[in-house]
């Protein structure tokens, strides 16, 4: 599909934008991303193999895979915030006077911070409900908060990354 930012460096060429220095190392998100992607591929592949060799399937893998995909979206999404890779219209924000460009970059980062800070609070409330009413998962039947509790945690991480970007964009180049 299509994204304004290049998905990956062209093979054999160095990365065009080296990562900016961040206070909290991006390696945290990067390693989590790699582990989750690998798990997603391995679980699904194992399911195919097991089904074809034993005509059994693990009904539980679907629930775990969907959970891992949500973790992926939030964790790798957090790194994408720090790298400023999220899809946006660059036409006006990345052209024109430099002061305006910087102001718009800060505004964009702040809006990202605002949304995920709000999402952190709201999803914490949903987790509270999940615990209070003892909700269980439809696939495996485990407490739902085991899955949902990561939403506020990772929303805080994304908000933090957005705040970091906001601060970095405020510095004189």
């Amino acid at each position, binding site marked *: 599909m299509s994204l304004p930012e290049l998905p990956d460096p062209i093979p054999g060429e160095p990365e065009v934008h080296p990562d900016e220095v961040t206070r909290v190392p991006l390696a945290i998100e990067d390693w989590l991303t790699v582990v989750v992607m690998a798990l997603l591929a391995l679980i699904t592949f194992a399911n195919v193999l097991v089904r074809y060799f034993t005509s059994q399937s693990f009904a539980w893998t679907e629930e775990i895979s969907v959970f891992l995909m949500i973790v992926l979206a939030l964790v790798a999404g957090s790194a994408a915030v720090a790298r400023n890779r999220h899809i946006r219209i660059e036409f006006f924000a990345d052209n024109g006077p430099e002061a305006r460009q910087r102001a718009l970059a800060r505004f964009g980062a702040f809006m990202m911070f605002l949304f995920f800070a709000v999402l952190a609070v709201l999803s914490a409330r949903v987790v509270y409900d999940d615990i209070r*009413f003892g909700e269980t998962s439809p*696939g495996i039947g485990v407490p739902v908060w085991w899955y949902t509790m990561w939403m506020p945690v990772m929303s805080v991480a994304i908000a933090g990354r957005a705040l970091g970007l906001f601060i970095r964009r405020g510095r004189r180049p």
Partner: protein
Amino acid sequence: QSNYKAEYKMSLVLGPPTPWGMAGQIWADLVKERTQGRINIKLYPGVSLVQGDQTREFSSLRQGVIDMAVGSTINWSPQIKELNLFSLPFLMPDYAAVDALTQGEVGKRIFATVDRAGAVPLAWGENGFRELTNSKKPIKSPEDLKGMKIRVVGSPLFSDTFNALGANPTQMSWADAQPALSSGAVDGQENPMFLFTVLKMHTVGQKFVTTWGYVADPLIFVVNKDVWNSWSPADREIVRQAAIEAGKQEIALARKGLVEADKPLLKDVAGMGVTVTTLSPAERDAFVKATRPVYEKWKATIGADLVNQAEKDIAARKK
């Protein structure tokens, strides 16, 4: 009455003209007419208010994301474990048994649980007995089911039941199930018979139906608590009465073609070139026996008290 909303959001899994959708339509129409338009209801079929995620419908209703709903006991069982009662394999042998539960002591207790879980329950409807279909062969015994991939809905109880029968249950939404069935990635599924004709399941290769009636899922008409409290007592009574009447009409629609002596709906299905298998009492017993451990396991989860009451009421039902 300034705090009445201009429009109330009603969530449903299926829209009209299915019986489920008609339940919502009739309820909404009756309420609008009898409150002279004070309470306007808009239908959101396909659980579109929570992106189609049926299992999040109830929590969203409790949290005010949804104002009212006609929902299935299966979809709400992640929030209310007692609702798994209706999914206990072979608990209810016939429609009289379903009525004995919903209209009796069990129904009252379940409504109390729904109320504790954060919504106002008003009336019962019905999705119907869920029958087994597949693309391979007529199923008359658990042995016939062995190794078959069957699509089931989202509750661990269903996985347990089909595993106990030697089948290979996979959980997926209907949107995924349709291509999976037509390509043969999945062999069979279970759903009420009216859905077989509505969704034209014979066109996705489902050529064999077994009317085993292993579970039936009733529908429950509910309203969000804050919304309920915002209405005048007179309006609440109108909404409740309308729900009860809509439920009665819907149950009649859901059973149409299945309660008559010659079961015309099954004849229609057979007319599509589908083999309809009816189990003899002895054949049915083999399925009951195979699923008994699942029944016992889940009896404890649901609450032995409630299950015992249900068994008692079913034994005493008017046939």
